[in-house]
């Protein structure tokens, strides 16, 4: 019979035990009677010889070895019963815990999906990305195509190696014309990632070359949306970017390199002029580590390759190294610290919740002291009582956990949706068994945490005294413990409040920063030129001019301009420059952000002109190349001297120096917060009309239009869309943004953090107040007789109130002091992790601490007033 049987047949076993013992007693009695004793006396003797039957039974049950399980079951039912008896307590405790565990579980679910889950590729831990880096600018993702080919050919430890870059154009025929995002990929990409296509095939090596037959792979989404998942599309021609392509495959559902893309074309077929330019670094590289090769070994080989390239092409590669990083790290990027930060914050809330429940339990434990003492008197061991208390808190913890998992399951989607920008791997964020396990562990750990204090005091010290006196006289110890709880709660709340305050202050400061542009009534949009206009440079120039002319005719539009990059949006074109004829060492070349614009850009964006002039209609092809620079560049290159009329060497633009014709204000291109820390802060503007003919095709694929209107800017979008559709009706606007929105979005991360920290801090504040109220109400109720005596001896209501308040002020004071230390540490963490964050300022403390103190005092005021209204006569009678 195993323990399970023994457990399940408990009733039967007990019955048999009863029978066995009865047999013993009756047999003994019978024997004694046989020897001539009278039956009454015989029964008495037999019982005496036997000892206490109940104790024997207990010990026999113990001997069975299933005792712990039976006890557990019993304790469990007992716990449920006691919880049911006090629905108020149970509801408060469960809600507190459910919120705490739920919030923690939501954060863990996100971390699990984004950071912990392996990527959906074969052996994802062997995948790396390769980056370039220079001493001056640190790491940069970009490779030039020729660098990639060299690297791919030379590397032994990283193979296969693949490359990809962004593209996108209009997809037409069959079906209506639409703009789709695309990626140009090298033929190895799918084999590097180790994924196979559900339909068709990947690109062949011979298709990844200039002049090969144009082939295309469609995303699963596009295939579903546009071709109703018909396998017949494989092998059919479609028109992309005005050229016929043959569809050879369908990518797996959910496949994405960084963001969603709808078409994939072979990178090697690209005719962009940059493909042959070693200085144009627009390629992402991913590779698979050969078996048994470590990232460090790969790095060693990469630096060897980098050195060889530097020797061969000093002009481009001097001082430029190469490093490999795990792909997962790359994809998750900078959300990792934010996530851990939030988990930490939410953990604090859970801690406060635990402390709160612990103090509630302690109150109950103290009032139950007599009950527990009674149990000891009836034979319960110390371990048994501790176990019973812990079972109760575990039941509470687990029920809270269950509620928490439910809350998490409901809350996780809104959380992901509200995440600023796009959360990487958002589709992987879901409640799975890892999450459930985590919630289980969290609830058990919290149960243990808040159950331990009451449990450890449960075993009866001075049993007799407890029984005789009731709960009142054994107060000293628990009062100290209660104060400890209140102090801990206040300290934790201080940490969260000050952190929230710091974030709030940061947002206020950042929002008041001048973005450098007048964002009011400005809308930006990208435009895909009609494929029929893409044949010659002349056609393209005319088409763009036509777009600007048409846009200006739309009612409400004041001015319109073209630009290749939009402030606050991802997108960059960094060019090296210098101001003297001799170039600085390759790795010391300063970089500037170069924007290609039309003359009205300054007017549309409202950028202030400092000196000289902006780009104008005369700056066209055939004339001297001119640039306009911003304050920063003028300061860096010319040190505050007159910059207009000076020359700059910008090899990425022209082999000969270019003329500076004007200086304009700096634009916070990288976002209000991020701009100060960005590596490239100098800015250059040059004329779209001076872009050489061979590059025009590429520029036409990346240009955006910015429009200033005197009506709400989004109202101008529909008329613009209609006006710009073009003769063939296949010229589409996409990626439309309100400039004001873009500026405000650049603080989305900070604002989101503030929102969450604000919620956490408010929760902490409320929980801490409930805790203080509960503890003080309890402590004062225990002191009622004492107050009675004091009042009988002449103390008035004010004295009693002062007495109670003094106690609470003491706790609050200590809590705030401890919390300040924690807040200072939290401030340092925040400063490191959040852009634009400044370290703790006295003002933050000066605002947040009083909020807490006032709330805490208010929470203690109610019990204090109640204490002051004690009727001395009744109080004394109670004693």
């Amino acid at each position, binding site marked *: 019979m195993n323990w399970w049987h023994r457990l399940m047949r408990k009733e039967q076993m007990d019955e*048999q*035990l009863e*029978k*066995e*013992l009865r*047999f*013993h007693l009756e*047999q*003994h009695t019978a024997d004694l009677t046989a020897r001539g004793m009278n039956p009454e006396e015989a029964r008495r003797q037999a019982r005496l*010889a*036997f*000892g*206490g*039957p109940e*104790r*024997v039974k207990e*010990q*026999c049950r*113990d*001997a*069975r*070895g299933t005792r712990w399980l039976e006890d557990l079951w019993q304790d469990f039912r007992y716990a449920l019963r006691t919880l049911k008896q006090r629905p108020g307590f149970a509801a408060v405790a469960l809600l507190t815990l459910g919120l705490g565990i739920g919030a923690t579980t939501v954060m863990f679910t996100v971390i699990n999906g984004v950071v912990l889950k392996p990527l959906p590729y074969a052996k994802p831990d062997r995948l790396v990305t390769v980056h370039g880096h220079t001493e001056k600018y640190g790491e940069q993702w970009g490779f030039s195509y020729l660098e990639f080919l060299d690297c791919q050919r030379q590397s032994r430890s990283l193979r296969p190696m693949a490359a990809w870059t962004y593209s996108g154009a209009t997809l037409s025929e069959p079906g209506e014309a639409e703009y789709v995002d695309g990626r140009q990929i090298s033929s190895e990409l799918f084999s590097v990632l180790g994924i196979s296509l559900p339909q068709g095939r990947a690109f062949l090596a011979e298709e990844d070359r200039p002049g090969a037959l144009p082939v295309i792979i469609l995303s699963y989404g596009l295939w579903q949306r546009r071709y109703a998942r018909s396998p017949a599309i494989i092998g059919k021609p479609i028109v992309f970017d005005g050229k016929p392509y043959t569809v050879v495959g369908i990518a797996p559902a959910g496949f994405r390199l960084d963001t969603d893309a709808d078409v994939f074309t072979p990178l090697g077929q690209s005719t962009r002029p940059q493909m042959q330019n070693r200085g144009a670094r627009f390629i992402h590289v991913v590779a698979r580590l050969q078996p048994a090769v470590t990232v460090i070994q790969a790095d060693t080989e990469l630096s060897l390759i980098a050195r060889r390239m530097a020797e061969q092409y000093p002009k481009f590669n001097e001082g430029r190294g190469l490093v490999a990083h795990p792909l997962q790290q790359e994809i998750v990027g900078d959300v990792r610290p934010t996530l851990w930060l939030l988990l930490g914050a939410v953990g604090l809330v859970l801690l406060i919740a635990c402390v709160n429940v612990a103090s509630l339990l302690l109150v109950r434990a103290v009032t139950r002291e007599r009950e527990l003492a009674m149990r000891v008197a009836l034979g319960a061991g110390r371990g048994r009582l501790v176990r019973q208390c812990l079972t109760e808190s575990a039941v509470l913890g687990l029920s809270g956990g269950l509620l928490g998992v439910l809350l998490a399951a409901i809350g996780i989607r809104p959380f992901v949706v509200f995440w600023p920008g796009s959360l990487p791997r958002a589709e992987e964020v879901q409640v799975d068994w890892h999450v459930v396990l985590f919630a289980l562990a969290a609830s058990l750990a919290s149960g243990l945490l808040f159950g331990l204090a009451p449990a450890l005091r449960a075993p009866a010290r001075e049993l007799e005294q407890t029984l005789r006196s009731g709960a009142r006289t054994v107060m000293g110890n628990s009062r100290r413990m209660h104060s400890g709880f209140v102090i801990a709660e206040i300290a934790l709340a201080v940490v969260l409040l000050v952190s929230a305050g710091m974030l709030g202050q940061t947002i206020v400061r950042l929002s008041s920063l001048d973005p450098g542009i007048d964002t009011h009534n400005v809308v930006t949009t990208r435009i895909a030129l009609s494929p029929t206009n893409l044949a010659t440079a002349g056609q393209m120039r005319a088409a763009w001019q036509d777009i600007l002319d048409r846009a200006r005719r739309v009612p409400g539009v004041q001015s319109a301009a073209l630009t290749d990059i939009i402030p606050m949006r991802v997108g960059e074109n960094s060019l090296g420059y210098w101001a003297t004829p001799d170039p600085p060492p390759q790795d010391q070349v300063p970089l500037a952000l170069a924007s290609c614009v039309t003359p009205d850009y300054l007017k549309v964006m409202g950028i202030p002109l400092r000196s000289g002039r902006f780009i104008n209609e005369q700056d066209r092809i055939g004339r001297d190349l001119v640039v306009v620079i911003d304050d920063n560049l003028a300061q860096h290159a010319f040190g505050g001297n007159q910059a207009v009329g000076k020359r700059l060497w910008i090899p990425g633009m022209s082999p000969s120096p270019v003329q500076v014709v004007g200086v304009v204000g700096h634009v916070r291109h990288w976002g209000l917060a991020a701009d100060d820390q960005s590596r490239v802060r100098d800015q250059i503007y040059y004329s779209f009309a001076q872009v050489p003919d061979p590059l025009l095709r590429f520029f036409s694929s990346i240009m955006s239009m910015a429009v200033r209107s005197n009506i709400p800017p989004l109202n101008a979008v529909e008329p613009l869309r209609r006006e710009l559709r073009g003769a063939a009706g296949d010229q589409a606007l996409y990626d439309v943004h309100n400039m004001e929105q873009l500026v405000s979005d650049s603080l989305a991360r900070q604002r989101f953090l503030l929102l969450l920290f604000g919620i956490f801090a408010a929760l902490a504040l409320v929980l801490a107040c409930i805790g203080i109220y509960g503890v003080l109400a309890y402590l004062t109720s225990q002191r009622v007789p004492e107050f009675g005596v004091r009042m009988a001896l002449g103390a008035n209501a004010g004295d009693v109130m002062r007495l109670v308040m003094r106690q609470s002020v003491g706790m609050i004071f200590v809590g705030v002091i401890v919390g300040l230390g924690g807040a200072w540490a939290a401030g340092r963490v925040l400063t490191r992790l959040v852009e634009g964050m400044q370290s703790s300022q006295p003002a933050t403390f000066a605002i947040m601490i009083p909020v807490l103190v006032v709330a805490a005092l208010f929470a203690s005021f109610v019990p204090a007033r109640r204490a002051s209204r004690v009727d001395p006569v009744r109080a004394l009678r109670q004693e």
Partner: protein
Amino acid sequence: MDLPQGTLDLLIMQVVALGPVHGYAIAQRLQQVSRDVVQVPQGSLYPALHRLENRGLLAADWKETETGREAKFYRLTRKGRMQLEAETESWRRLAEAVGLVLKMSAGGAE
């Protein structure tokens, strides 16, 4: 006389080794054989019996006594017999050793 730790188990097994026997009989036998030196509260026999049963040293069946009543009869299992032999042996050695030491110190006092 108080019994040293574990001795009760040994005594019980010794009694049970003589043949299937119920709890009351074990108590009686212990008392008779030890000439009333070993006096345990009879009740405390049962936890020991159940513990031994639980450890697989004893097995039990419900059978009829000579008087026609149902009682729980204990018998020694194979494992119990081996355990009994091992413990008897070590007990005997311990007793001899203790006896020797006591004799020696008694001699020294004379």
